[in-house]
């Protein structure tokens, strides 16, 4: 895979992995950047706002990491993970890096018969995804460097964006 965006690559990989990972995909699976930006979102619940999920997970991870750091930098060869769960329902988050930026794969599972197995499958899925995207060229997803992108943006254009506020 080359010349694909990170988002497109992740979407493609995960969508192609659904059949063999039905244990994971019967729950809500998402990928977001450390600042909360959602890259991928799979859920059977259309009422869930994915942007809110991203923002909260980003904050959750940052807060957890900061609390741990307060006790001194405790490194683990396995890296950290974050869970908020009961015996069959909850949230599980695993981090991964792309070009020195931290991303998270998150899973919200609900009434899972064997949550440990679901988490394990998710971890395997994430590891396979990391290998896949490490082979990608990510030049299409980057900070804006196009000098003409929003050149001389006008008040009229901004007003158009916020036209809903006039009502």
């Amino acid at each position, binding site marked *: 895979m080359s010349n694909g965006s990170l988002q497109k690559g992740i979407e493609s990989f995960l969508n192609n992995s659904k059949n063999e990972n039905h244990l994971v995909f019967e729950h809500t699976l998402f990928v977001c950047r450390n600042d909360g930006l959602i890259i991928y979102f799979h859920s059977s619940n259309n009422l869930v706002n994915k942007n809110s999920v991203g923002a909260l997970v980003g904050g959750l991870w940052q807060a957890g990491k900061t609390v741990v750091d307060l006790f001194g930098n405790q490194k683990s060869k396995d890296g950290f993970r974050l869970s908020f769960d009961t015996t069959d329902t909850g949230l599980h988050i695993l981090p991964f890096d792309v070009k020195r930026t931290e991303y998270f794969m998150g899973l919200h599972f609900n009434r899972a018969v064997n949550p440990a197995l679901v988490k394990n499958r998710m971890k395997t899925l994430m590891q396979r995804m990391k290998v896949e995207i490490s082979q990608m060229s990510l030049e299409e997803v980057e900070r804006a460097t196009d000098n003409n992108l929003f050149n001389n943006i006008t*008040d009229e254009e901004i007003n158009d964006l916020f036209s809903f506020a006039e009502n």
Partner: protein
Amino acid sequence: MSFVNYHTKEVNCKIVYYGPGLGGKTTNIQYVYAKTGNANQNEIIKLNTENERTLFFDFLPLELGEIRGFKTRFHLYTVPGQVFYEASRKLILRGVDGIVFVADSQLEKMEANIESLKGLEKNLIEQGYDIDKIPLVMQWNKRDLPNVTPIEDMQQQLNKWNVPSFQAIATDGDGVFDTLKMISKLVLMNLKGEFQPRPTL
């Protein structure tokens, strides 16, 4: 946070409302949320204490229309204003693209405004930002109350960078969108590096 995806033609930006406690940060984004109605289909997220004070942050994802072919999405955050929550404020500034400083215009709140602004400068430095370079807009809120500080004094004491500033009565919506439009414009211009460092007075 700014994230431009050329493949999907999307722009994502993070704007943080910063300022002293009870200054009107949450009221600002509540008003924006009320104006979006159901068209936006996004909920406002509030992480509050039992007495309705912001505990961690408020969050409003704002999906706007297209600009120059790019779908534009702003993520609005507020920080908790109370002094106790300094650690939370630092976290929320991570990845910020633009800041609205909401100052309380009441005379007796000037010290709290100054303290909060100092905290902002310090926290930005800790997160690797320079307040001289990041898009910043000042909002002088609560102008309807008696005993407010004259605008000239607000400018002198809080706006040494001479960034755009707006008077506001956030509870009525006055000045809320003027402020948001300005910071949005500055953030979008900054995406391409056009925004220049501000000279200090």
